[in-house]
């Protein structure tokens, strides 16, 4: 109980201390977007006959006619009220766009992370149990191979093989087969929503859509996870307390799992948190390749067309997710490691 309380206090403190970082991100992005040489008004005034007047209209509409400090002030004011502005690209409120697209990105990233963890932890443990063995080298090679293929290449290859050649995957066009009716949105996570609705066909359809992009992403992050698992497992296995466990005759399973692995998992949690936040921001390419309606591809399109509001909104969202993920990691860590709570 005291541990939990201490963890909560710690998490709250961490959260409070990350607020300046969020604010920094907000300002930095705003300024970065103003530095972009593209003028969104010009880009969006792209009708075959649009002239100066139309450009000016858009500029005014976007508030670009005001001096930058005033723009920043207005922007902060809007953000404070939960208004992230309007995207010229989709014509929608950025908040709405992001809210619609975030679950897609989250679901994809979560699944990828899950796949990666499910593969990486056993691989890392196996490698650590027999360091220097063939298994160890095999794991190392497998992991290294995973990181050395750019995600867009592995994604396109997977599509080519599983969709085009063998036809076992559905067409890579989004989260669910276009002919499947969507379940009522409770969580925005299709797999969960379908399960809640008891629609097995739908669940299966969504699962099939998800598996290729999730694997593409997972492949890229298995390496760091397996590497850290192996390293911390090695440290853990060589530690004094494992020797103690052996000296009192605990069973192999208990030594490996309860003593070694539970200790070794702590750094893995931290790395998994970092991996998750980087993946969420870095899956632009995967989302592009699989036409996945997520936030990252949304931000990319906005960036290329100098559509400020979505990019700013996206960065802020990612930074918040980063903070939340860190918080979750902290809490998990606090629960898993009693030593943290006094620190």
């Amino acid at each position, binding site marked *: 109980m005291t541990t939990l309380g201490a963890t909560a206090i710690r998490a709250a403190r961490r959260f409070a201390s*990350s607020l*300046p*970082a*969020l604010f*920094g*991100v907000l300002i*930095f*992005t705003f300024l*970065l*977007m103003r*530095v*972009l*040489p*593209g003028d969104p008004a010009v880009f969006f005034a792209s009708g075959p006959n649009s002239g100066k007047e139309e450009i000016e209209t858009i500029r005014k509409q976007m508030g670009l006619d005001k001096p930058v400090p005033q723009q920043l002030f207005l922007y902060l004011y809007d953000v404070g009220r939960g208004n992230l502005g309007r995207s010229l690209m989709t014509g929608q409120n950025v908040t709405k766009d992001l809210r619609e697209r975030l679950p897609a990105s989250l679901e994809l990233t979560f699944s990828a992370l899950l796949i990666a963890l499910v593969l990486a932890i056993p691989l890392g443990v196996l490698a650590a149990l027999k360091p*220097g063995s063939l298994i160890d*080298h095999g794991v*190392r*090679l497998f992991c*290294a*191979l995973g*990181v*050395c*293929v*750019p*995600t*867009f*290449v592995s994604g*396109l*290859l997977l599509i*080519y093989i599983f969709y*085009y050649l063998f036809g076992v995957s559905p067409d890579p066009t989004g989260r669910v087969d276009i002919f499947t009716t969507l379940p009522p949105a409770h969580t925005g996570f299709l797999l969960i929503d379908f399960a809640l609705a008891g629609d097995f066909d739908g669940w299966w359809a969504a699962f099939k859509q998800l598996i290729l992009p999730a694997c593409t992403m997972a492949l890229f992050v298995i*390496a760091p996870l397996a*590497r850290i698992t192996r390293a911390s497992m*090695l*440290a853990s296995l*060589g530690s004094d307390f494992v020797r103690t466990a052996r000296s009192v005759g605990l069973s192999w399973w208990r030594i490996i799992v309860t003593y070694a692995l539970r200790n070794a998992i702590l750094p893995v949690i931290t790395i998994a948190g970092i991996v998750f*936040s*980087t993946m*969420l*921001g*870095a899956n*632009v*390419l995967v989302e*592009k390749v699989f036409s996945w309606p997520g936030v*990252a591809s949304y*931000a*990319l399109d906005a*960036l*290329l067309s100098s559509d400020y509001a979505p*990019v700013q909104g*996206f*960065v802020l969202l*990612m*930074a918040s997710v*980063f*903070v939340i993920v860190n918080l979750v990691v902290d809490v998990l860590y606090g629960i898993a490691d009693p030593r943290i709570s006094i620190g």
Partner: protein
Amino acid sequence: MSSATLQHAAFILRGNPITGIAAIGASLLIFVGIFGPWIVPYDPIASNVQNALMPPSAAHWAGTDQLGRDVFSRIIVAAQLDLAIAVSAVGISFALGAVIGALCGYSGGKLDRAVGRFVDVLMAFPLFVLAMAMVAALGNRVENIVIATAIINLPFYIRFARAEVNVRRNLGWVEAARACGDSHVSVVLRFLLPNVLPAMVVQMSLNLGWAIINAAGLSFIGLGVKPPTPEWGIMVAEGARFISTGKWWLVAFPGLALMLAVLCFNLLGDGLRDILDPRQRT
């Protein structure tokens, strides 16, 4: 390097031949990077549209591309640019990160907290998007790709150096240096930094591969180096779009080159980590 270190390296290599292979691969890569332009069979930029999109043959080992350029020659020449991008990007973030991180880790206090905040801001960014935005803002020249890659890498180096220095700041030889008349700054730069370098070199090696991949990703969304300069990322990105038409060699060969390069750096980094890991030394 002292003979004992070499001996130790030899011991590690015996137990871990993959590292040896990776080291050979990396040296080969560096060789190709330096001498590439002199050993290619064709001019990598000269077009020959009549001869476009030819599959691999005896004349063109890796086929030809859309403009009839020899893919093999382009791959070889591209090694130089890719290595240059990766090395300079990683080098910059390493140099800056090591110094800043070491100073913070040693001094603690206000400086540490201020830099910590800055690092937090950077870390909270979706890094790939940050890189994209920077390249988009500064223009897609090689220097800017390098700068963007370096900046998004910087926080990791700062943190790493900070942690490494922090555990050493109270060691006897650090205090001894001060007792021997060195100032704080001199202790950091002349004593602590050289000692954390080996650990950071491992990080660098792993990072080199990542930097190449990152540049390839930028190329894929159109923010890579300028055409017609051969670069693996661009070649892969362009080639990837020919997968569906069966022109496999356009993606396969540059992809293989990129993969092998990244693989070499990663395996080398892994191996170096083993060599430098004190736990494995005794």
